[in-house]
C-alpha cells in the first residue's frame, strides 16, 4: 500500500477522464438543473410551509397546511382516498403497460430480423409524436357511450355487449398506458437487445426448452429493465391528471369508488382555492410518494445475489 502510494505521488499522470474539460463540459448541465430544477424545487417545497393572510401568501415556516391536509385524509376532502385512488390507478397501469411492452419488445428483438428492428421500433414509438391531449380525445371518441366501439358492437348486432368504460378509472388507465408505452418500449428494448444471444444458445445447448430459457435466462436478465420501467411508468402515472379528468371524468368510478385521483384534487384546489401554499403542500406530498416509489425500485434493483441461493 505504502509503496503504491509513493509510486502514485511520484508519477502523477492525468488520464483523459481527469481533464479539466470534464468539469467544463458538465457546467452547462449543472447550471441548467440548478437554475431550472433544483432551485425551483427547493422553493416549491418551502412554499408549502407559507401562510395565507388577506388572500395572499406570506413567507413563513408553518405546519398549518400539512396539519389541515392530514386532518382531511379520510374525512372532508378525503385526500387519503385520492392518494389511494392514484395508486390504484397508477400501479396496475404501470404493470399492464410494462407487461404489454415487454411482450412487444421480445417480439421485436427475437422475432424481427436485425435490419428491420429499427423500423419496428420506430413504428411502435410513433404515437409518442402525436399530442397527448389529442390522443386522449381520440380515446374519448373510441370509448364514449355512443363511441366507435359501441357503434360497431350495435352495428354487428352485439348491442347487449356495449361497454361502459368512459368516465371510469379503467378509461383513465387506458389513456395512461397509451401515454407511457412508447417510453417503456425504449427502456425495455435497450435491456432485452443487450442480452447476449450466446447465453440463449448456451441455455438451449445445456438442455433448456424455449420456455425454460425464457424463465431462467431472459427474464432474470431483464429484471433491472422491468423494474425501471414499472417505477418509471408508476411515477409518470401518479403525476398525470389529464387522463383522469378527460377519460376518467374527474371522479371516475373504480373499486375504490367515485373518487378523483390525487393530482385531480390538486388541480381543482389550484383552480378554486385561494390557498396556494396549501395546494403546494399537497403537491409536495405527491412528490414524496414518487420518491418512495423510486426508492423501492432502487432497492429491488440491487442484486439479491449477496448470499448463496442453493
Amino acid at each position, binding site marked *: 500500500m505504502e509503496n503504491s502510494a509513493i509510486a502514485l505521488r511520484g508519477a502523477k499522470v492525468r488520464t483523459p477522464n481527469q481533464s479539466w474539460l470534464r468539469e467544463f463540459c458538465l457546467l452547462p448541465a449543472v447550471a441548467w438543473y440548478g437554475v431550472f430544477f433544483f432551485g425551483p424545487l427547493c422553493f416549491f417545497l418551502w412554499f408549502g410551509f407559507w401562510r395565507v393572510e388577506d388572500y395572499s401568501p406570506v413567507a413563513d415556516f408553518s405546519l398549518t397546511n400539512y396539519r389541515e391536509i392530514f386532518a382531511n385524509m379520510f374525512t372532508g376532502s378525503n385526500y387519503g382516498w385520492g392518494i389511494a385512488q392514484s395508486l390504484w390507478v397508477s400501479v396496475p397501469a404501470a404493470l399492464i403497460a410494462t407487461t404489454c411492452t415487454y411482450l412487444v419488445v421480445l417480439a421485436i428483438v427475437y422475432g424481427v430480423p436485425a435490419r428491420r428492428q429499427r423500423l419496428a421500433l420506430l413504428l411502435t414509438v410513433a404515437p409518442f409524436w402525436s399530442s397527448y391531449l389529442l390522443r386522449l380525445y381520440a380515446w374519448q371518441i373510441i370509448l364514449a357511450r355512443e363511441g366507435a366501439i359501441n357503434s360497431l358492437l350495435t352495428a354487428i348486432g352485439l348491442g347487449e355487449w356495449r361497454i361502459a368504460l368512459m368516465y371510469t378509472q379503467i378509461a383513465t388507465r387506458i389513456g395512461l398506458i397509451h401515454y407511457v408505452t412508447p417510453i417503456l418500449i425504449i427502456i425495455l428494448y435497450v435491456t432485452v437487445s443487450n442480452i*447476449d444471444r450466446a447465453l440463449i444458445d448456451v441455455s*438451449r*445447448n*445445456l*438442455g*433448456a426448452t424455449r420456455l425454460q430459457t425464457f424463465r*431462467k435466462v431472459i427474464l432474470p436478465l431483464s429484471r433491472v429493465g422491468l423494474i425501471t420501467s414499472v417505477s418509471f411508468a408508476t411515477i409518470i402515472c401518479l403525476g398525470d391528471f389529464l387522463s383522469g379528468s378527460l377519460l376518467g371524468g374527474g371522479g371516475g368510478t373504480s373499486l375504490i369508488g367515485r373518487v378523483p385521483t390525487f393530482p385531480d384534487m390538486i388541480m381543482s384546489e389550484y383552480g378554486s382555492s385561494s390557498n396556494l401554499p396549501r395546494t403546494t403542500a399537497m403537491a409536495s406530498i405527491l412528490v414524496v410518494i414518487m420518491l418512495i416509489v423510486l426508492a423501492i425500485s432502487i432497492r429491488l434493483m440491487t442484486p439479491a445475489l449477496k448470499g*448463496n441461493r*442453493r
Partner: protein
Amino acid sequence: MQGGKAVATKDLELIGITRRFGEFVALDGIDLEVGQGEFVAIMGPSGCGKTTLLRIMAGLESTTSGRMLVKGRDLAAVPIHRRPTRLVWQDYALFPHLNVFDNIAFGPRLGPHVPSELRKKVLEMADLVSLEGLLDRRISQLSGGQKQRVALARAIITEPEILLLDEPLSALDAHLRIRMQGELRRLQQALGISFIYVTHNQNEAFSMADRVAVLNKGRVEQVGTPEAIYHHPSSRFVAQFVGMNNLFSGKVATVSEHYTEIASDNGPIRAVTGSKSPRIGETVHVVVQADKIKRATAHTSNENRINAILRGREFAGSHNVYLFDLPNGNEIKIVSEDEPGSPPEKLSGSPSDLYFSVRDAFIIGFQ
C-alpha cells in the same frame, strides 16, 4: 457410407454435411468420423466453416443437407435441448446473473433433481476442474482461466456424449494456454468421452488431438494424426497452412525408383518417389519443411540446390526464421537454430546458395 446400422463403434459420424447461406456455401459435403473417446481437432483458417460445423454438431445451426449420427443415432429429428452434444464457447458465455455454483448447476436443474445430490455433484465437478472455494463467486470476479473452467464444468456436469470446444483457449494468455492444454487432455482421458476441438492454432491442435481434420473453404482437406498432417500434408493448402513448409511447383520430368525429378522455375528439383508416383508431364508441388533447407557449403553435393536472395530475418526466441526470394519471385522460409556472427542487416540482399536433401522433399497434388 451407411453409418446408420454400424452400431456404437463411432461416437460421431458426419455424412455429407452441407450448409449454404444463400449463394455462399459455408460447408460443402463434410464427412468426418470420430471414434470412441477420441480427441479430434478441427483446424482451419478463419472463415473455413469450422465454427459453423461445430454449431451444427451442437444443434444450434441447421444443415442444408447431410446426416449426423451420434453413437449410431441420427440426430435430425432430435430437438436442440435433447441433443447429447455440449458446446463450450470461445468467450465462455457464462450466465452473468448467476454465481459459479448456479452456473454449473444450470443444466442439471432443468430436469428432475435432488438438491442434496446436485450439490454433491457440483462440488465434484468443481473439484475436477480445480474450482474449489470459488463456488460463491460472481462471474465478474473470475479470471479468464477460471471462467474457462466454469464453462467446462457447466458443460461436463450434464454428462454429454460429445464435448464440442470452440477455440476455448484463444482468450487466455500464452502461459495459461499451455497449462490448460494439458488439463483439457487429462480431463478428456478421465471422462472417456470424445472431444471435438475447433481451433486455428496448430500448436493446440497438434499437442492435444489424436487426430486433426484440416478444413478449407467448407471442405475437409485432410484428416489424420498430427504427425501425418505435419510430415505428409496431402494437399497444397494443408502444406501451406500447417507447419512452415515451402512449396515448389513444376512439371514432372523423370521418374526413377529413388527419386522423381521436377522441372521448376527455379531449376530441377528431385524429390523422393513415394508408393504412388505421378505421370511424366503432370504439374505437381514439392513440399520441403522450413527446417530442412540449409545453407550450402563447399562440400555439399548431390542434393537439391537453389539460389536465393536473403530478404530478412525474424528472431523467434529459440530459432531464427530467414526469408529468401527465389529467382522466380516466390518467397521461401528457412528455420535455423542459430546463426552466430553476421548481423542481419549486412546479410540482407546478399545472394545465398541453399540446399535440401532429396529425402526431405515430398511430392503432392497429383492425381
